């Protein structure tokens, strides 16, 4: 039997339409792989639900005009799925079964895509290592020694797409939670413009930064998913009321686009190989007719990206997670008073790292501190975004290394107390995409020690179709797509 499930979305659709394979076989193949998975990528396997759905579809004709028909996918476990356990990888929500469904999930269900599993994440989507969920570390499928991270917070979604278990997986991106793991996993990771996809049903971490984002193994699949998910939803007042665009149709528009390279960020990339491969591709792109423009952004602003992101996201997170008291839902702890119950639930329910975030966020919002911390971060956010907007006013998109390193071993990620400014510039610039709400995509650029690293492209808000079509051109030039961990082509 051919390993159909490891095909791309577009290829799988063709196989389904040609009736070479059925949704049921795809689901069975995916389930088999999930059961054999040793990367700790899953919270809940929807075996019964998926098989039932596939069975239902087996009585139907494959829908030639619906690319999602019968396709298995994986959903990050911070999307509310009615009647299906949703834990956000937190002890506090270990038994939480939602009563309503996220818009994203409903759209995929309406398109008859089959959710095969809920993927693990950093607890409540806070973290970048894929190690803080209640089930521990999620491993990088490219590294069979199980010492390296796939990155977070969308670690399970990234690992399942990188291992070829599903052709696409849904995640969320608040700082770089999809685009960084995409770099470590040889994947395409896309965070569209804030407000393009409904967040209804996505567990909020920091609503002004949170974006529904996702993984595929090529840019065309990525555009197909945006076609389904983009668009106004009255349940999320922040979704844009813009006419629907066919992102797939616009993929092949080729123009002499101007791409900006922020020299300070490339400069801060320490790894000589990653830097060299990146620079080599700049000249290759120029040969293809694209224009590369080197620009400069004040280092102080770039150094401020991480603290700014951290303060704003932590402040918002304290408030967004104040609903978790174990009284209405979640793991309850008995107590003599409301205060005692709350204290027990939140002390035992959250990991240390989450509590640290809440304390910092709470401090930033105290009336006496707001001016100095929270509002200063808000001003800093505006300055950073304006600096990038000025670049984007003159260029079509910004092109940068997605990460200064390949996937790191877990034992190198112990947080250090000192703040390495140079490292921070290269490691955290993707958060600018969230501060500004920009569309931003990571795609595979190369390999080092048999581990992938990526390149990132970021455009101005609501230029998603342009970003995708440039990404498509870059993908063709680099020639790395449909990568699956352990399967070298």
């Amino acid at each position: 039997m051919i390993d159909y499930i490891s095909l791309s979305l577009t290829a799988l659709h063709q196989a389904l339409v040609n009736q070479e394979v059925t949704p049921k076989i795809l689901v069975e193949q995916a389930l088999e792989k999930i059961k054999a998975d040793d990367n700790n990528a899953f919270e809940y396997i929807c075996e019964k639900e998926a098989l039932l759905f596939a069975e239902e579809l087996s009585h139907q004709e494959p829908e030639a005009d619906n690319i999602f028909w019968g396709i298995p996918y994986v959903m990050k476990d911070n999307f509310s799925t009615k009647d299906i356990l949703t834990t956000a990888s937190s002890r506090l929500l270990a038994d939480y079964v939602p009563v309503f469904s996220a818009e994203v999930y409903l759209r995929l269900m309406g398109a008859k895509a089959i959710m095969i599993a809920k993927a693990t994440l950093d607890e409540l989507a806070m973290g970048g290592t894929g190690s803080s969920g209640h089930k521990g570390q999620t491993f990088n499928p490219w590294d069979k020694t199980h010492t390296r991270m796939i990155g977070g917070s969308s670690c399970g979604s990234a690992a399942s797409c990188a291992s070829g278990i599903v052709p696409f997986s849904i995640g969320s991106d608040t700082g770089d939670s999809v685009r960084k793991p995409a770099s470590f996993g040889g994947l395409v990771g896309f965070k569209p413009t804030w407000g393009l996809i409904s967040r209804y049903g996505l567990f909020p971490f920091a609503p002004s930064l949170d974006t529904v984002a996702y993984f595929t193994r090529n840019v065309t699949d990525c555009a197909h998913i945006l076609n389904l998910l983009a668009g106004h939803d009255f349940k999320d007042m922040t979704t844009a009321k813009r006419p629907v665009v066919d992102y797939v149709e616009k993929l092949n528009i080729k123009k002499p686009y101007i791409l900006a390279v922020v020299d300070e960020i490339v400069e801060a990339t320490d790894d000589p190989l990653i830097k060299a491969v990146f620079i080599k591709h700049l000249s290759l792109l120029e040969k293809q007719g694209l224009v590369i423009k080197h620009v400069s952004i004040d280092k102080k602003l770039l150094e401020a990206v991480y603290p700014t992101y951290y303060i704003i996201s932590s402040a918002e997170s304290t408030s967004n997670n104040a609903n978790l008291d174990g009284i209405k839902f979640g793991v309850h702890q008995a107590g003599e008073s409301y205060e005692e119950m709350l204290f027990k639930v939140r002390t035992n329910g959250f990991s240390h790292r989450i509590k640290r975030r809440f304390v910092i966020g709470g401090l930033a919002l105290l009336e006496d501190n707001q001016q100095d911390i929270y509002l200063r971060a808000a001003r800093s956010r505006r300055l950073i975004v304006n600096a990038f907007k000025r670049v984007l006013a003159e260029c079509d998109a910004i092109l940068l290394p997605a990460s200064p390193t390949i996937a790191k071993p877990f034992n190198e990620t112990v947080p250090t107390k000192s703040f390495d400014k140079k490292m921070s510039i290269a490691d955290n610039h993707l958060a600018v995409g969230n501060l500004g709400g920009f569309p931003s995509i990571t795609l595979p650029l190369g390999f080092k020690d048999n581990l992938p690293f990526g390149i990132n492209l970021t455009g101005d808000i609501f230029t998603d179709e342009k970003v995708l079509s440039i990404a498509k051109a870059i993908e063709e030039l680099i020639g790395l797509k449909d990568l699956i961990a352990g399967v070298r082509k």
Partner: protein
Amino acid sequence: MTYRAIVGLEIHLQLVTNTKLFSGALTDFGALPNSQIAPLDMAFPGSMPTINERCVKAAIKMANALDMSLSETMTFDRKNYFYSDLAKGYQLTQYFNPLGRDGQLLLTTAEGEKVIHVTRLHLEEDTAKQVHVNNETWLDFNRAGVGLIEIVTAPDFNSGVEAEQFAKLMQKLALKLKISTGKMQEGAMRVDVNVSLQKEDSAFKGVVVEIKNLNSFRNIARAVNAEIKRQKILLESKEALYPETRRYDEINNLTIFMRRKQQKNDYHYFPETNIAPIKLSQDLIDMAVNEDKPRGDVLADYTLTTMQKSVLTRNPYLKTLFIKLINKGLPSDFVANFLAGKVQAALKIMGAAKLQKIEEETITLLALYQAEKISSKQLTTFYQQLLANKSLNDIYNSDNDAPIASEQRLAAIIDEVLLECHEAVIAYRQGKDKSLNYILGQIYRKTNNQVDPKITKALLLKKMED
């Protein structure tokens, strides 16, 4: 020494709207506990607020009546604190940018007319109701998220009676504007007072004491008077006064200490980013102000069953679609029936975005049915196909069971039926109009509903006259 009482009011009015301020859940007073809840009211993770325009209009009406200036854009903020009746752990309110500012109202007092300044008016959501049973606290989330407006006056009153009169005036105003029942015993109007005593001809500005949750007009005056008396005694005996929160004990006619205000509550206020700033358009303001009779609901104009009405009210999208279809000239009972049935079922499974995508085609489809171009069975199957991403054009053109177009074939079927229902034909000719429907029914049955009703009827009538 003579003292001058300085009194200010904070009034909460619970808004009479069919649904809550942000969640879309119903708001019937006296419904079974925890029966009127949407995911947001319980703060289920991922639920998000949407604004109820009726609440905004109500607030605009009151702000207008109080002669206030309206903010240009409407924004909301989070007031963060932990309490068992506050599901989200924060209350959505308008802290930084209240909807109305700097208003006034003329109050007729014993000493003549007096201008009362109204500092601010803002929208916010109510908390859940706590019911204490023996040693337990029960929570009823029906009230959680109901729209409130809070009105804060300047300290312009000098007696308990004035404060009471103003509160009565506010109730009257709320009733006149039909925005709140103002019933204090039901908690639809809640009053807090701030009381301080100033010494005449002295720099002493007094110490502000707040008395919370006064539950009747009479108690407003009595509580203020009791507090004035308490403060006077303390001041005269040169004892210290502290800023504090107190409550009123009706039986002993005393105010009772609750907590000191020294430790300022810190609510970590910050803007709610799930609600983008909304421009208050002149249209909306005009609409609110000129709405002399508040129609509880746009649906009130149509004759609908309770079930249909509740379906439309609970699903904002269906309600919008309903209005659109009505405006296209389709009859309300037919539209409501279709929306409450097929469309609601699809909405539950596929979500509103999907339905919006096929909205234009849905409207066309219903118009086709109304024009008797398609049968009811086709209406159903075509709609299912629309939901399955087929275009109406394709469906219509490729329909295997397309209406039996050939008049010749139809005529043959009619002849057949006429022979079979000979008795009905005679009855019809004798003036029994109902028989015609019977015969039509037979034709529909024979053709499996696949005939154009209009053409069939015309043809049948022609044949019966022959």
